[in-house]
């Protein structure tokens, strides 16, 4: 009897201890969010309004008086708008086809549509430089065919805007497509059937029934695309379109202590993204309707006829081909040996791939990226699971608040966060000049945390709470239950989320370019950028390195979509 009592006591103690560790982790998580998300942003905002400790609005007139900054803001805004409109035009027909029609090879083709996601558009920018240069493949080809007489300056200053927009569209349309598809798939087909029985014409059904129901999903995707395009640093940088806000911020980081206008520019970016985010969330996409129980969902899809199939195949394959032009051009560039004044290279070689592993810089890039992205994924796994658990099981007083806080990085441009880190942590033990690894890992982790949290939340919501309650009735502590019951059940979601976090960390441009200041710490993307700027064969090695990066990412994203299936779309919404 005494013995069993002692046992009971010790197990009680163990339970208390594990509870304490658990709550400690939650507290640490919240501290991390505070120091590496809230605090840096707060510092930027405060510096935009402070001069020697005095409140001032002087910087903003300076900002708007400067032609360069003013033009940059206008240009970036238009990049965001044009990209959003164009991605919508590209994705809408594809999403409707996906929701309404069945055809042979649908799974494969739908998968192909997502391929462009695997490459940061700035790598594509390297490829198209070769193709669309004055003496590049496209001009030469067109001249050979006699369509044009003189080469067109595709990437000249007057065309750079569209070059950036098109690269962004080709990269970002899958996000819009996933969101629209998910939104359309969620609509109970019987609501349309009902309208049909009432004699409502097709176009009116789209206007009065489908659109209101799909609207929240559309705006959830649209805002991500808009912010992404508006704040992407890599593409305009490599295309050479420097009159954009991200490039200006990038240039200002070095002299931020002398020039406080930089803070006000970043503040304007924060203001714009927050404003559009709120607008999309509350004014345009707030009304989410609860779908009633679904009827026969299968009956809603039409078998595409012959002409329909031809049209569908043409549309999808055409889209994928155009979207892959930058990738293909990178591929060809990376294996080209002698390539001068011809449409395609005269000779091919794999020596640049060999150089990736022989030369120091590319290899450092790959090694570092694997390390940083891997570490950040582990951080995301731990934080994401805990936060999701705390949110879904409502273990903190305001779970909704924590949820919103975790989602902030989706709307917060990477360039703002990186800028904030430099400002906040320079001259501290985390100074990125000395060793950027901790900040890089944390930046990668924080920016991808929303994917992990969303993924884990989706899994937890499908896991009945009674499974955990049952465990607790047997005397298990919360964290024993978490380990033995909850985690195994949401494992698929965790793996998928982790793969996405890893991929996007590997692709990260703004944090990598800004925070990694010494060569020994360069991640993949910064290595590609630096190689690209080098004379001689640098851009060829950069292409080869880009291809290797793409291969790694293709594997990760395919893995994630295999595991997640149709739920993939839910990860890319705010």
């Amino acid at each position, binding site marked *: 009897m005494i013995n069993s009592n002692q*046992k009971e006591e010790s*197990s*009680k103690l163990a*339970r208390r201890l594990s509870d304490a560790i658990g709550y400690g982790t939650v507290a640490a998580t919240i501290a991390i969010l505070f120091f590496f998300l809230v605090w840096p942003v707060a510092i930027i905002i405060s510096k935009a309004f402070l001069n020697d400790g005095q409140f001032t609005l002087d910087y903003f007139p300076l900002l708007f008086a400067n032609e360069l900054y003013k033009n940059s803001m206008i240009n970036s805004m238009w990049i965001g708008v044009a990209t959003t409109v164009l991605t919508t035009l590209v994705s809408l027909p594809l999403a409707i086809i996906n929701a309404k029609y069945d055809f042979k090879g649908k799974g494969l083709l739908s998968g192909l549509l997502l391929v462009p996601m695997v490459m940061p558009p700035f790598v594509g920018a390297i490829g198209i430089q070769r193709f669309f240069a004055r003496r590049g493949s496209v001009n030469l080809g067109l001249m050979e065919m006699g369509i044009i007489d003189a080469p067109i300056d595709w990437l000249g200053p007057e065309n750079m805007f569209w070059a950036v927009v098109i690269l962004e569209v080709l990269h970002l349309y899958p996000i819009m497509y996933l969101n629209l598809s998910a939104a359309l798939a969620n609509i109970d087909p019987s609501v349309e059937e009902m309208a049909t029985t009432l004699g409502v014409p097709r176009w009116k059904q789209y206007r009065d029934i489908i659109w209101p129901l799909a609207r929240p999903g559309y705006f959830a995707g649209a805002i991500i695309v808009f912010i992404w395009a508006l704040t992407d640093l890599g593409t305009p940088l490599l295309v050479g379109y420097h009159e954009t806000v991200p490039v200006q911020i990038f240039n200002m980081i070095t002299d931020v202590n002398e020039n406080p206008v930089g803070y006000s520019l970043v503040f304007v970016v924060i203001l714009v993204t927050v404003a559009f985010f709120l607008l999309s969330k509350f004014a345009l996409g707030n009304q989410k309707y609860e779908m009633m129980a679904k009827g026969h969902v299968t009956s809603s899809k039409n078998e595409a006829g012959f002409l329909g199939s031809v049209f569908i195949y043409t549309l999808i394959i055409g889209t994928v081909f155009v979207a892959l032009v930058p990738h293909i051009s990178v591929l060809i560039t990376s294996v080209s040996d002698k390539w001068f004044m011809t449409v395609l290279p005269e000779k091919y070689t794999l020596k640049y791939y060999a150089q990736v592993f022989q030369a120091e810089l590319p290899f450092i890039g790959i090694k570092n990226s694997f390390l940083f992205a891997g570490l950040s994924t582990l951080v995301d796994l731990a934080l994401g699971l805990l936060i999701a658990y705390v949110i879904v099981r409502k273990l903190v007083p305001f779970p909704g608040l924590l949820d919103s806080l975790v989602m902030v990085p989706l709307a917060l441009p990477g360039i703002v966060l990186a800028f904030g880190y430099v400002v906040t942590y320079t001259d501290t033990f985390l100074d990125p000049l000395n060793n950027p690894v901790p900040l890089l890992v944390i930046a990668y982790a924080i920016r991808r945390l929303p994917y992990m949290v969303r993924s884990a939340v989706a899994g937890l919501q499908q896991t*009945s709470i*009674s*499974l955990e*309650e*049952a*465990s*607790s*009735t*047997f*005397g*298990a*502590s919360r964290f*024993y239950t978490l380990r*033995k*019951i909850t985690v*195994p*059940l949401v494992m698929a979601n965790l793996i998928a989320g982790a793969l996405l976090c890893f991929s996007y960390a590997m692709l990260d441009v703004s944090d990598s370019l800004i925070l990694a200041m010494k060569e020994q710490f360069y991640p993949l993307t910064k290595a590609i950028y630096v190689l690209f700027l080098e004379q001689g064969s640098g851009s060829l090695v950069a292409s080869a390195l880009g291809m290797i990066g793409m291969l790694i990412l293709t594997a990760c994203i395919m893995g994630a979509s295999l595991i997640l299936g149709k739920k993939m779309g839910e990860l890319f919404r705010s």
Partner: protein
Amino acid sequence: MEVVFNKVCKRYGDFTAVNELDLKIESGSLHFLLGPSGCGKTTTLRMLAGLETVTSGKLYFDGKDVTSLPAADRGIGMVFQNYALWPHMTVYKNIEYGLKLRKLTASEVKSRIDDVLTITQLTNFTHRLPGQLSGGQQQRVALARALAIRPNVLLLDEPLSNLDAKLRMEMRDNILKIHKQTGITTVYVTHDQKESLSMGTSISVMHAGDLIQTASPRDLYRNPNTPFIAGFIGETNLIEGVVRKKEGDIYSVETVLGNFVATRASGNYDIGSKVSLSIRPEAIAIDWSGNGQGDNPIQLKVDHLTYLGESEQFLLKSAQSDKQIIKANFYHAPDHSFSEGDSIQCFVPKSDVLVLPAQVEMGPGT
């Protein structure tokens, strides 16, 4: 293990889910918490399990205050409505899980698992995953898992509500048998009054957060203390009236259908007080002599009838009031068939008329 609730309350903001519950559950009994959905019975069970915190009041196990003891320390075994079997563990692992947490010896774990597998007839399914089992088998695994840890109290939350009618009957017998074998104090939540009448040692009826009556099944059916229970446990006719005469236990109540004499009452009612009369459909008898013999004679007209084979279910109206519809079941109706519109001379034995408080106080849903 004796379980005592002392003024236990559960509030969610302004909403009171359970209101000042006082209840003593005898050791070894099979006690039912019965009520319509939303009455607070599941909340009560979850407070007992420690899955829901108690807003105020005290909870005792064998006299020991367990009000703020976490679920993990209460030594209860619970069967959830959806069974809550862990889908990634086999039947064996599901049962073993709770035992492993108890740091028992390997042989003890093994023998306990074998015991409960035998009791629940699951010996052949140990290596299946829950998804590979039928509903009834899943239910038995849930039961086996809860029993294996030899709980102080076994809690069953609508354990049969996901089974079809035939399986439900089988499992009722099973649970009764297991309860008899183990003698574990068991608290059983259900909204099915037949389940509670046929199985329970005692039944507590809850309504809108209040415990209204605790009694044995027989007593509950025969002597419900409110019109709500009379209507909820079985069927009844409730007729509003006013007490006009009272001699000892014999009441005379004036209603729209005339005066009724009753010899049973749920309490003491003064002359002039408003009351409800409860008359079970099977208590109404036909006066074949047709000349108003027997207690409480009443002339009724057939409004609608449903033929059920062994009996006939009548909806009747009285000559005096068109609004009051009377339900009656006539068994073994002699070789005589009624049709709608016929008049029938009936009577109601005065020991089958029960005086209850007036219905208005019960609010909606009664």
